[in-house]
């Protein structure tokens, strides 16, 4: 028997109580601390900070805990918090060439100034479950790190010893396209999608912001699609670096810069093919990826998609989804996507009733028409 839809208020309250119980789980198991999440699930924290667009490891860890490990839900919590924060100042551009590097690899040169630094990567792990971790254990921690043979450089290489591959090394020969800088940043300030409405067509600054905030899975698949031939722009990873950079602000009333903290970031620059054109001599082109925290998958994918989205600028035909800025930018945000996809579980019975009425009416009319058609035939027989 149908029970009237009353008592939504009580139902919501009970749902929230159940959710809190589910989040905590059995009481005999110790509760996760924010510090544990922050330090031991740091790649989850990275993703939440990157797609939440807010660099705060503690809040990201809190969001992950509150969201029961659902990272998109955690990103949502961060976004909803971020949007309420006042903009106190805009920082100067970060200098990734002055990064304190933890990892840096180039796929285009065997060796290069500053060296190849492997850093903390899964790249050469064998994906075998480490059953030692089932119990609280230290895993590979007990193994001592082996001293460098001296082939590669010291990992504490200073900034002068680690020039950027694209900007510093390839550019020397003029082999890579020069990045255009706005002539006057007063007149052409860097866009901010969270403050101004998105209107197409857009410039690269807004595209990069959108990609940096975009869903890792979506960007990954789009990047992958370019490699499989949907807007192929064969890419080499010129350089990927992970480390910390300092953020500086320049308060106008002081006239000198102040270091206000550090960011951990992953940066990827790709070297892509380009045939040249009537106006441009043959040269390599670029894609760029930058994300908060450690996330090479996202940084590389972002660089691939960034390059694909530069089709118009390069005079290339737009033939694939990854080149279509309206398609990419309108669908990359997982908070928008998950909201709209999931909203169809909300009541739609008014609209459904309207459709139901029409379908019934059309069926009746069709049936009547068939009967009318059938009757004269029978009469003729």
């Amino acid at each position, binding site marked *: *028997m*149908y*029970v*009237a*839809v*009353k*008592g*939504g*208020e009580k*139902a*919501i309250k009970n749902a929230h109580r159940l959710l809190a119980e589910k989040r905590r789980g059995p009481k005999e198991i110790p509760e996760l601390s924010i510090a544990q999440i922050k330090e031991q699930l740091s790649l989850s924290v990275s993703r939440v900070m990157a797609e939440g667009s807010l660099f*705060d490891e*503690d*809040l990201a860890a*809190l969001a992950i805990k509150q969201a029961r490990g659902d990272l998109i839900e955690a990103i*949502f919590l961060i*976004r*909803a918090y*971020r*949007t*309420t*924060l*006042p903009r106190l100042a805009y920082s100067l551009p970060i200098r990734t060439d002055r990064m304190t590097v933890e990892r840096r690899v180039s796929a285009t040169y065997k060796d290069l100034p500053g060296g190849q630094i492997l850093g903390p990567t899964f790249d050469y792990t064998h994906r075998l479950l480490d059953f030692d971790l089932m119990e609280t254990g230290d895993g590979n921690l007990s193994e001592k790190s082996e001293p460098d043979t001296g082939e590669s450089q010291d990992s504490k290489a200073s900034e002068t010893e680690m020039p950027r591959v694209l900007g510093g090394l390839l550019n020397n020969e003029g082999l890579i396209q020069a990045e255009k800088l706005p002539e006057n940043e007063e007149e052409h300030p860097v866009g901010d999608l*969270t*403050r*101004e*409405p*998105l*209107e*197409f*067509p857009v410039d690269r600054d807004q595209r990069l912001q959108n990609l940096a905030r975009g869903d890792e899975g979506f960007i990954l698949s789009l990047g992958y699609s370019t490699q499989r031939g949907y807007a192929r722009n064969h890419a080499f990873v010129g350089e990927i670096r992970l480390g910390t950079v300092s953020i500086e602000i320049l308060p106008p009333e002081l006239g000198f810069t102040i270091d206000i903290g550090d960011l951990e970031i992953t940066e990827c620059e790709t070297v892509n093919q380009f045939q040249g054109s009537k106006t441009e001599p043959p040269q390599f082109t670029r894609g760029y990826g930058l994300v908060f925290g450690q996330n090479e998958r996202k940084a590389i994918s972002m660089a691939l998609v960034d390059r694909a989205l530069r089709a118009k600028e390069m005079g290339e035909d737009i033939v694939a989804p990854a080149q279509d800025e*309206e398609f990419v930018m*309108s669908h990359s945000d997982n*908070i*928008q996507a*998950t*909201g*709209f*996809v*999931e*909203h*169809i579980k*909300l*009541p*739609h*019975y*008014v*609209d459904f*009733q*309207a*459709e*139901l*009425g*029409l379908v019934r*009416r*059309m069926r009746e*009319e069709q049936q009547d028409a068939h009967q009318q058609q059938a009757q004269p035939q029978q009469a003729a027989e």
Partner: protein
Amino acid sequence: MSQSTTASSYNYAYLDEQTKRMIRRALLKAVAIPGYQVPFAGREMPMPYGWGTGGVQVTATVIGPSDTLKVIDQGSDDTTNAVSIRQFFEKTANIDTTEKTKDATVIQTRHRIPEETLTDGQILVYQVPIPEPLRFLEPRETETRKMHALEEYGLMHVKLYEDISRHGHIATTYAYPVKVNDRYVMDPSPTPKFDNPKMDNCAALQLFGAGREKRIYAIPPYTKVQSLDFEDHPFEIQSWDEDCALCGSKDSFLDEVILDDKGNRMFVCSDSDYCQSRRDDSISPPVEHTLAQAAQMQSVNSEASK
């Protein structure tokens, strides 16, 4: 960043005043150009996109302490999301709420327009999922904006015509396109076409907020709103063979309630306040029944008639 972890209190009606100013500018533009979609820098809200973030931002922007708010979803004040949005404003704007259409100064709605005629000074705020009426004919924003600018609506008429040639009807039953003030074709949000005539020459201000798509549009009071149609296929609204099983209304939008798995069903008003006040005002039965009782009677009756 340690101070950021302490709980902070939010501004009145959640949005900061700069954001409200930005939205008010968009609203003013929207009112000045009826039916035109104004881009605005929609914020992330503490509820998901698709749950009414556009409507909530508009309501948060126009509401003040002296207002009385009503929130409906599917015509009802009691659906979970309506309850949730009402609680949000009770909490953040410390506002009086009501279920009575006539007592409300601001009404936020999803999928319905109240049955009771709205009056001067009321504001109706619609939650809009896809603001672009041409979206399903042309997915590109760059193209649809051009079509609006050139008043190029032929594609929409072709679509409606194809419906007629294929189905014998215009097969659009909700989000039925309208032309506002003889200029812009507008999506009335997914309200049933039953509600379209209520938009025409309406005394209340109608505001539309699409949060995910970041668009605001409006119909000022007493503005002409015309549902698209053809001379030989005039626009018509839905009607039911049944009356409301609770209040006996013959002219309101009815929801179908399934009673069992044998095909028994009954119909009740989708607008719960309208239905309730009709029952309160009426003297004769079957008005005193609860929905459940009415349902029981209905299935007994239909058993008997077999």
